[in-house]
């Protein structure tokens, strides 16, 4: 529990005091993220679940009862509930089968299932495909997808025009798609040998 929060009034927490909440969520986001990633090694899904948990807590803050436990235990309960919901959702849908190259072949026609993203070989395929791109393309893709920057910010960071960033990102996406398909086929062939 954050010491500052422990000292302050629970009323401020329930009423939505901005400073208390800023302090609280800045400590809870990494903790919740770690919990979800430990369950499913999938950063995108972990981000979705952290977001859902934090918003569930914000919207239900009026129902928090200090006599039942600390706010940390309370938000952990919400997170566990979201894990159960996700597990139930997964159990109700057919598990993806077939080799990994078939999913990468259809990368622009259907969403990749979470289960495919969580396979160990997927991370290796992505790392291998990324390493085959030009360094500038790697930087642009990481800036866009990991750092969440827009074209203007990327252009400032890379010292190029915004138009150049757009065309670089376009080329990088096409190249990455090709490299992913190739790396996936190589992975499948390697497993067969």
């Amino acid at each position: 529990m954050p010491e500052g929060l422990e000292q302050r009034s629970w009323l401020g927490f329930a009423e939505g005091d901005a400073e208390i909440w800023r302090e609280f969520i800045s400590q809870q986001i990494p903790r919740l993220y770690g919990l979800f990633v430990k369950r499913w090694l999938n950063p995108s899904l972990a981000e979705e679940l952290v977001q859902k948990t934090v918003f569930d807590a914000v919207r239900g803050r009026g129902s928090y009862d200090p006599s039942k436990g600390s706010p940390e235990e309370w938000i952990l309960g919400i997170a566990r509930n979201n894990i159960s919901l996700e597990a139930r959702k997964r159990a109700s849908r057919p598990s993806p089968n077939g080799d990994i190259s078939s999913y990468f072949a259809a990368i622009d026609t259907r969403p990749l299932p979470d289960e495919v993203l969580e396979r160990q070989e997927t991370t290796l395929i992505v790392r291998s495909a990324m390493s085959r791109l030009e360094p500038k393309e790697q930087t642009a893709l990481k800036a866009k997808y990991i750092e969440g920057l827009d074209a203007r910010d990327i252009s400032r960071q890379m010292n190029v025009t915004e138009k150049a960033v757009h065309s670089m990102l376009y080329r990088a996406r096409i190249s990455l798609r090709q490299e992913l398909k190739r790396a996936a086929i190589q992975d499948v062939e390697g497993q067969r040998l």
Partner: protein
Amino acid sequence: MKRENDNSFYYNSIILLDKNLARLVKLTCDPDKPTEAFTQSLTSNVLGEIKRSVEANKRTRENILVKVSWLDKAVGWAAMSAAACAAGLAFVVAALLKLNSCLAVMAIMTVFANWLNYLGGLIL
């Protein structure tokens, strides 16, 4: 029509590719902690949501207070005074004109009915 369908398919495939690549590229970052961009964006969205809901609650509370404290009280007192004055006036006029007491009672009943009508409107 076919061209429209082709265009829609093309844009959908671009969006789908973009989403899939975003999820894949994130696999290359440190899995132990969330990215700074995600943390900042979520924190700012959460604080925005809290601010909005606190302001909405405050507005609702103020509206209720204004209704009860001012408008209703003022109109209520005015209507009550008018009803009392009208009742008094009905008796005085009836006495001065030496009217039948039934007429005076009728006048009072009319005022009372109007008062009830006003109260009914407030309740509904």
